[in-house]
């Protein structure tokens, strides 16, 4: 199926960059970014702190089998590089990685000149598996998120990890994963979901081909603008959603029903017994026999009542105005306003919810109304409150 239509980008998701930082670590945090291994603190050429940090980096490297080689650079002032001293420092640091279990064949050391005026430091860069281009990167993850090529070999993944074509991404109960695709699009896999990353081809003039296969659960997609002739498809067992707009959700239910909710733009729903375009504000579904239902309006965003702000000793009761046609409500509480990480999802029958076990700190919350057939409406405005026991 080909979908060639003008693309519109109306809404861009703002999210924090992928970080795997823990101030308690020996390096002050380690980040794998754009082929560089960035440490939270500058890495001195030698010393016990450097050694401890390199051991920690070695553990992080061993946990990433896609990384095939590491280059360690000792950038020292010219006076300290004389007679191979710089290279000796780099090789000594490389030996720490090897001693910590990184194969010697994958570690190399160099001593490039330092930037004039800057103190000497160690830098690390890596090369990932070359044959497969990175299709997506995990921008945010909360709960159990794992990925792998076959269901039997799924490994836990964290923010910043690369994902390749053909890999399966799995979210557990209450978990959620946000992917930054290589074409700039954002895909959120909701709880208890399974998504296979298909082809992702980037061509000249912003033309691209993105194919995702939703095996279970719900994905929420914000498609980046693409050039003429671009394809962006989310396939389920019974239907294909071809993007002609920007923001939509697709759900693959256990009973074989595929549900589509278009929040912005226009999305084509293709099933065995017909296809239709679903414009923003409407939803439709493909039944197990391949028939599609006429589009239906999505439920409006609930109006939030309380709390809209403030500090509470315990988690306050969340209340909102009831939405006509809503059978239940999905309440999301998160640590960040983009609802990318640390998201907790609750179901509520009425227009209020007592949230159990919210820890100390700032929390953001929003509510989505769900109709009798499971169609999820527009999200409410986001409000925040603080819990200070």
């Amino acid at each position, binding site marked *: 199926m080909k979908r060639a239509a003008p693309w519109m980008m109306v809404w861009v998701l703002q999210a924090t960059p992928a970080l795997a930082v823990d101030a308690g670590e020996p390096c002050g945090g380690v980040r794998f970014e754009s082929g560089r291994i960035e440490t939270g603190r500058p890495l001195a050429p030698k010393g016990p702190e450097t050694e401890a940090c390199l051991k920690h980096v070695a553990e992080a490297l061993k946990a990433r089998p896609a990384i095939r080689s590491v280059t360690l650079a000792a950038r020292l002032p010219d006076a300290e590089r004389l007679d191979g001293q710089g290279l000796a420092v780099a090789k000594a640091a490389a030996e720490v990685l090897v001693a910590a279990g990184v*194969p010697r064949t994958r570690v190399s050391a160099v001593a490039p000149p330092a930037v004039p005026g800057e103190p000497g430091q160690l830098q690390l860069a890596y090369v990932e598996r070359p044959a497969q281009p990175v299709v997506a990167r995990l921008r945010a993850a909360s709960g159990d998120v794992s990925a792998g090529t076959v269901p039997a070999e799924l490994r836990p993944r964290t923010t910043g990890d690369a994902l390749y074509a053909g890999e399966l991404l799995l979210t557990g109960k209450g978990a959620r994963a946000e992917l930054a695709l290589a074409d700039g699009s954002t895909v959120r896999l909701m709880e208890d979901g399974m998504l296979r990353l298909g082809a992702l081809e980037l061509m000249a003039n912003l033309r691209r081909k993105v194919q995702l296969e939703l095996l279970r659960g719900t994905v929420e997609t914000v498609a980046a603008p693409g050039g003429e002739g671009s394809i962006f498809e989310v396939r389920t067992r019974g239907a294909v959603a071809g993007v002609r707009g920007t923001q939509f959700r697709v759900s693959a239910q256990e009973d074989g029903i595929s549900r589509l909710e278009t929040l912005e733009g226009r999305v084509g729903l293709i099933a065995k017994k017909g296809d239709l375009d679903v414009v923003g504000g409407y939803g439709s579904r493909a039944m197990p026999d391949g028939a599609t239902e006429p589009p239906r309006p999505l439920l409006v965003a609930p109006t939030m009542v309380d709390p809209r702000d403030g500090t509470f000793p315990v988690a306050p009761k969340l209340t909102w105005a009831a939405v006509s046609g809503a059978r239940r409500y999905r309440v999301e509480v998160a640590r960040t306003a983009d609802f990318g990480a640390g998201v907790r999802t609750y179901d509520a029958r009425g227009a209020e919810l007592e949230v159990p076990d919210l820890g100390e700190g700032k929390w953001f919350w929003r509510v989505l109304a769900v109709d009798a057939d499971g169609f999820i409406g527009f999200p409410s405005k986001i409000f925040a409150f603080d819990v200070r026991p």
Partner: protein
Amino acid sequence: MSTSPAESARRSSPRRPAVFRALGALVGVALAGVTAATGGAPGFLERGLYDQAVSRWLPEVPRSADMVLVEVDDRALATLGERWPLSRATWARAFRALAAQRPAAVAVDVIFDQPGPREALELGEDVLEALRTSGLAEQPAGAALAADLEARLHAQDGDARLAEALAESGGVILGAAALTEDMPVMPPLEDGALDTPLPLPGTAPRLQARAMAGSIAPLRMAARSSGTLNMLVDGDGVIRRYPYAVGVGGRAWPSLALATALHLMPERAASLRALAATDQGAPLMRLPAPDWLPRVSLADVLHADPASVGLDLALRGKTVFVGVTAMGLHGQSTLPGQVAVPGVEIHAFALDNLRSERLLRSSGLAAWGGVLETAAVLLAFAVLCRRSRSLGAVLRAAVLLSLLHLALVGWLAADPGWVLPLVPAWVGLGLMLVVDSVARGEELGQQRSALRRLFVRYPQGAPETPPGSGQ
């Protein structure tokens, strides 16, 4: 009191040519204004003339004494027995061989944006692992075999050896690509950062891109820096401007020529950056002769004796540009008056232009100066038109002003390097000349008609022949 139509025509006629002359002048000034607003000269009407001027009439860039092109030519590929792209191991050998000659800098017109093949390495690693797991490596023969295999695998890791060679060289500037919408997609750098962005406050580079692509991280880390290889190609396919800076997401990144210049002359960094910002980071280039850059084949670099005097003379202390010139492999870049120029040579021209401050300026002050100069020429012609009594005198004034304009534009381009629009003033002069000619023709016609009327009247009142004069 009433006026006859003939009288009103006589009264209005002196104003009409002035209005049309002003309109003609306005067309000329508007053309200059459009040229200024669209980035400066040469405008689309005068590109051919500019190409002729810059390639034939402007003084050529003197032959370079301290730059050299090490080319991957057909002979190098045949000697190496490799196809393009060369293996990382070969590149590592090449950079080691170059480093042995102690060049001042090595600018590379190549992007190593993908890791080299690792299938054989991974197979070797698996064998090594199996050797160790089986316990064979604990026996003397097995240990020797494992050590030998490990050493071989280490030697075969092309990316690592290339990184070492780049670091040993100490002055290698790698290529990078600003990803514009019209170029084939390369994997963009995720953080979009090549190295350190250029501080170009208040200047939005003329060339804007959506992302940046570069060599793999270990190579970027080992090299001195990276610079973009992009060119600015005009609508007619000719490269007249060189983008010293490229804008990506509000940050500016240096080109290969600028990055090399900053490495070679750190003491002039501020002035080089200021120069590179000329014409929104993409000034017009002065062109060299076609054989301006001395060339050395990579085959000679790799196979000559490292102690060779010839190689030493060719490379020691020089700025070496490395790029591909083999048939069918290099970009067919077209410069004014020159076709099929390898892109690597254009970076070398650009570096020479920058360090010798030979850049041509055509936007900003130069562009609006061009508008004023065009207006001044046309105003002078308007004044001369009013004072001239004959069409011949007007024609002479137009020719004189055209030549003066040409001389001024030529001198400004050749000496201070300001490229002003040439054609708009000529168009304005031409239109004003036509208007003046027509007006003078009409006036002549009116005078003739008046004379004719007079002559018609005179015979009627002429004295009759005296009676009897003929008798």
